[in-house]
C-alpha cells in the first residue's frame, strides 16, 4: 500500500477504501477503490485526494469507461454508486431529486404509475444518474440531459459541497453552473444528486417501422417523418444493426415512436403509413435501437446539421460502418467491425472514415468505443479545440490539483 493510500484508508476507514495490488483499468494502474456512501464521505475523500494530488478515475455504473480519452494518469478508482439518498418525487410539480448513484432503471421503476416519466434513456443497463449526466449520454427517445437538469449537488475537487440551480422550472439566480458539469465527464466535480424536470407520461405511444431503400429520397422521407408533431423517436438504422426488424433485402429501417395525445398519435401513425408505408411494431423496435447504439467494438458518434447528416452517413458506410441516425436531431452512431482488439488497420480505417464524415458535414465527432490500444495516446474527441486555453482555465479553477479524471476529456482536460 502506497503512503497516500495508507493515509486515505486511515482517514476514511477500511469500509470506504479498498487497497489492492495495482490493477490495470483503461490504461491506468489503480491501487485502491474508494466507495463513499454519502456526500459527506465523498467530500472528505476528494479533499484528501486533492491534498495528496492523487488522481482518481470516477466511475458510476461503469457503462461508459471506454468512452472519452483513456484516463491513464488515474491511480485510484472512485465509485459513486454508494451515493444513494432516497428520491424526492414531487408529482404535483413534475420534478424529482435523485441521488447520483441511483441506476436509471431504478428511477424509472420509482416513477412508474406516477403520471411522469424520466426524460433520460441512454443505453446501458447499469447506467447511473451521475454517469449519464457527466457523459451527457442520450438515447433514442430523449436528447442530451442538459435541458432537463434543474439543479445539481456537486462535490468539487476541494471537497466543497455546492449546489447549482434549484428545484423550480425557471431560474436565473446566478450563473447556470449545472450546464458546466453536465457533459464534463467528471473532470470538474463529482455530481452528488440532481433535480430533474420530469416529462408527463404520454397518454398513448405507438411504434411504427418501415423499410427504406438506399436512395436519397429515403433520407427526405425519414426527415419528414421525424418532424411529425408527436414523434419522440425517429431513427434510420441500417438493417445490419437491427436484424429481423425489416424484411430481408431492405437496406434500412425507419423506426418511429409516437407519444402523446391518443388521437394525435393515431393521426401521425396514419400519416407515416402514407408517407413511408410504415406498419405498427412493438416497443422492442426501440429497444433494438438501444442495442444498436451501444454495440460493436468500435463506435463513433457524429453530430451534424440535419441537411448534412445523410452525407456523413454515406461516408461512414463507405468506410465500412453501419449507421444508426436520428435525422431530426442531427445525430448518428456508426459501428465498425474489427478483427479482434489488435486490429490496428481496422481501427485506422474506421477513424479515417469518421474524420472524412465530420469534415464533409462540418460536424462534431466522438470516438465512443474502441479497443484500449486504439485509444491510448489518441484524442478521441474530434478536431483541435480552439478554446483550449479557456477550457484549461476553467479546469484549473475547479480542479487545481488535477485529481478528477485527468486527461479524460477533450484536449487532455
Amino acid at each position, binding site marked *: 500500500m502506497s503512503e497516500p493510500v495508507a493515509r486515505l484508508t486511515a482517514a476514511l476507514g477500511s469500509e470506504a477504501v479498498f487497497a489492492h495490488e495495482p490493477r490495470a483499468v483503461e490504461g491506468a494502474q489503480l491501487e485502491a477503490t474508494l466507495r463513499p456512501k454519502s456526500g459527506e464521505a465523498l467530500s472528505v475523500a476528494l479533499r484528501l485526494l486533492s491534498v495528496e494530488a492523487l488522481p482518481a478515475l470516477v466511475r458510476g455504473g461503469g457503462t461508459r469507461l471506454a468512452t472519452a480519452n483513456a484516463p491513464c494518469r488515474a491511480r485510484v478508482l472512485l465509485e459513486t454508486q454508494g451515493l444513494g439518498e432516497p428520491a424526492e418525487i414531487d408529482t404535483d410539480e413534475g420534478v424529482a431529486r435523485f441521488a447520483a448513484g441511483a441506476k436509471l432503471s431504478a428511477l424509472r421503476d420509482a416513477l412508474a404509475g406516477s403520471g411522469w416519466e424520466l426524460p433520460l434513456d441512454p443505453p446501458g443497463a447499469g447506467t447511473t444518474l451521475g454517469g449519464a449526466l457527466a457523459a451527457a449520454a442520450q438515447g433514442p427517445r430523449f436528447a442530451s440531459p442538459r435541458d432537463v437538469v434543474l439543479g445539481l449537488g456537486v462535490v468539487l475537487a476541494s471537497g466543497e459541497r455546492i449546489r447549482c440551480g434549484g428545484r423550480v422550472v*425557471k431560474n436565473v439566480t446566478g450563473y447556470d453552473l449545472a450546464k458546466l458539469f453536465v457533459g464534463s465527464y467528471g473532470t470538474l466535480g463529482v455530481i452528488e444528486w440532481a433535480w430533474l424536470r420530469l416529462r408527463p407520461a404520454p397518454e398513448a405511444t405507438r411504434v411504427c417501422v418501415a423499410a427504406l431503400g438506399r436512395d436519397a429520397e429515403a433520407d427526405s422521407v425519414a426527415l419528414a417523418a421525424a418532424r411529425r*408533431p408527436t414523434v419522440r423517436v425517429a431513427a434510420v438504422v441500417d438493417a445490419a444493426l437491427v436484424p429481423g426488424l425489416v424484411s430481408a433485402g431492405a437496406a434500412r429501417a425507419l423506426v418511429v415512436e409516437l407519444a*402523446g395525445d391518443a388521437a394525435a398519435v393515431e393521426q401521425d401513425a396514419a400519416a407515416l403509413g402514407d408517407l413511408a408505408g410504415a406498419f405498427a411494431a412493438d416497443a422492442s423496435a426501440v429497444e433494438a435501437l438501444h442495442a444498436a447504439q451501444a454495440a460493436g467494438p468500435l463506435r463513433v458518434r457524429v453530430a451534424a446539421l440535419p441537411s448534412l447528416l445523410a452525407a456523413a452517413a454515406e461516408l461512414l458506410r463507405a468506410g465500412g460502418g453501419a449507421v444508426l441516425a436520428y435525422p431530426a436531431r442531427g445525430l448518428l452512431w456508426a459501428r465498425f467491425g474489427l478483427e479482434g482488439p489488435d486490429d490496428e488497420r481496422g481501427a485506422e480505417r474506421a477513424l479515417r472514415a469518421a474524420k472524412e464524415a465530420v469534415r464533409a458535414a462540418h460536424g462534431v465527432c466522438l470516438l465512443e468505443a474502441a479497443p484500449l490500444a486504439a485509444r491510448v495516446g489518441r484524442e478521441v474527441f474530434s478536431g483541435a479545440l480552439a478554446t483550449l486555453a479557456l477550457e484549461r482555465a476553467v479546469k484549473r479553477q475547479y480542479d487545481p490539483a488535477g485529481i478528477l479524471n485527468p486527461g479524460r476529456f477533450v484536449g487532455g482536460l
Partner: protein
Amino acid sequence: MQVARQAPRAARAGGPSGVPGPAASEFVAALREIVGPEAVLARPEDLLVYEADGLTLHGALPCAVVLPSDKTEVARVVRACRAHGVPFVPRGAGTGLSGGAVALDSGVVIECSRLNRILRVDAENRIAVVQPGVVNGDLGKAVAPHGLFFAPDPSSQLACTLGGNAAENSGGPHTLKYGTTTNHVLALELVLPDGEIVRLGSAVGEARGYDLVGAVVGSEGTLGIVTELTVRLSPLPEHSETLLAIFGDVVSACRAVGEIIKSGLVPAALEIVDRRTIAAVEASVYAAGLPTDAGAVLLIELDGPALAVARQLERVCALCAAAGAREVSVARDAEERQRFWRARKGAFGAMGRLAPDLYVHDAVVPRSKLPEILERVCEIGDRHRLRLSNVFHAGDGNLHPNISFDRRDPDELRRVLAAGEEILRVCVEAGGVISGEHGIGTEKREYMRLVFSDADLAAMCRLRAAFDPDSVCNPGKIFPSTRFCMESDPKARRYEQVELA
C-alpha cells in the same frame, strides 16, 4: 435593497476610474479612433440616457458609450478599456430590469445596437445566425414566413435584443412549453474580457469541450461580450387556442394552474392577471374588455396538433371549472386572441397610470405553492400599505408582484424595498429562487445568500475567474458586495482566491 446611485466618478475625479482628466480625454480619443467619432458618446447629456436600464432605481453614469459596428471593433474597444484600466459593460436595448446594463465605476457602455443584422436563416436546419443587436421580435418576423419562430418571447420583445436575451437568459409567456433562451442558443461568438474573440458551441448543438455556451447564457454580461449568436428555431404549431378563465379571486386562479400542471398538460402559456392589474389595464389604451369585478383572469394558450388541442381544451375547461372559474371563454378568432393577450402584454404599460414609479419583482416558487404564496405576497403588500398587483407567468411559478409607488416619497420607497425583501424571503422559504427571468444585476446581489451558500457563490466566482480574472467585464453585478468582489475601490474589485477547505 439599497437605492444605489453612484456619483459619476468622471465628474468627481476628472477621468475614468479616477484617472486624471488628460488621461480621460486620451482614452475617449482612443475609442474614437477605433469606432469613429460619431460612435462614441461622452457628453454628460448623452450619457444620461445610459444612467439606468429598466430598473430606474439603480443608476450610475458611464464615462463613455461606444457603439461598435463589428466584432473587431468590439475587441479593440475591450483592449483599449483594458489598456486604460476602465471596466466595460455590454448593453442591448436597456430593457433589463435588474440593473445589469449599468456601468458601475465610471465604466464604458458597449452598446450593441449597430450589430443588428440577421446574418442567416437556415429554414431547413431550423437555425438562424444573428448579431446581438437584433430585436427579438424582428427575428420572429423574419422567420415566420418559413413556418418557424424563435421561442423566447419576453414582454419587451418589440424592443429587447437577442444579445440581451442571451445575457439574461430571458423567458416570456411561452417558456412554460418551449423553455428559456438557454434552451435555444446553440453557439456564440464572444469577445473575452481580454479582447480575444472565441467561438463557443456549434450549430449542431454539441460542444466540443465544456458547455461554455450554457455557462455564458444567463451570465449577465459578466463573462464577455457576445458578438454573434446561432439560435434554434421552432416550427410554428399546427393549431393553437387561447382561453380566458375568469375567477373570483387570484388564489382560485392559482389553484387552477396547479391542477393543470399536476394533470400533465403542458399548455404553451398560463398567465395570471389579478384584479388591480385588470383595473389598470381597463382604464388604459390597452383595455381588453375584461370584467373589472373579477378577482383574476387566467390566460391559457394551448398549441399542437389540432386534434390534441381540442381534447386539451376540454380538459383545461373542466379543471378551471373545478377550481371555481366563473366563466371560461375561448377566443373565436385572431382578433379576440389578440385582445386577450393585450391585457397581459399591456399590463406594464398600463401600470404607468397608477403612479410615477413601478417596481417589477421577479421570483419563482414551485407551482403547487402558488396559492399560499400569492396570499402571503398580497398580505405583505397590504401590511406595508402598498399598491401591489400581480401579473405573472403562473405556469412556471414565476411571480411578478408589481408595486406602484412614488420615489419622491422616502417613506413609501422604504416600504417598497422592505416589502420586496420580504417577498423574496417567502419565495425562497417555499423552495423557490429570487429571479426567474430578470437576473440579479445590482438589484438582488445582496440577496444571493438567501439562496446560495458561500461555497456555492465561490463556485460561481471560479467560473468568473476563468473568463475574467481581473473582474473588468460588468463588475459589481450578481455577487454580494461583501467578501466576494465589490470593494469601493475598483482596483480592489477582485475575487478572493478561493481557498481549499
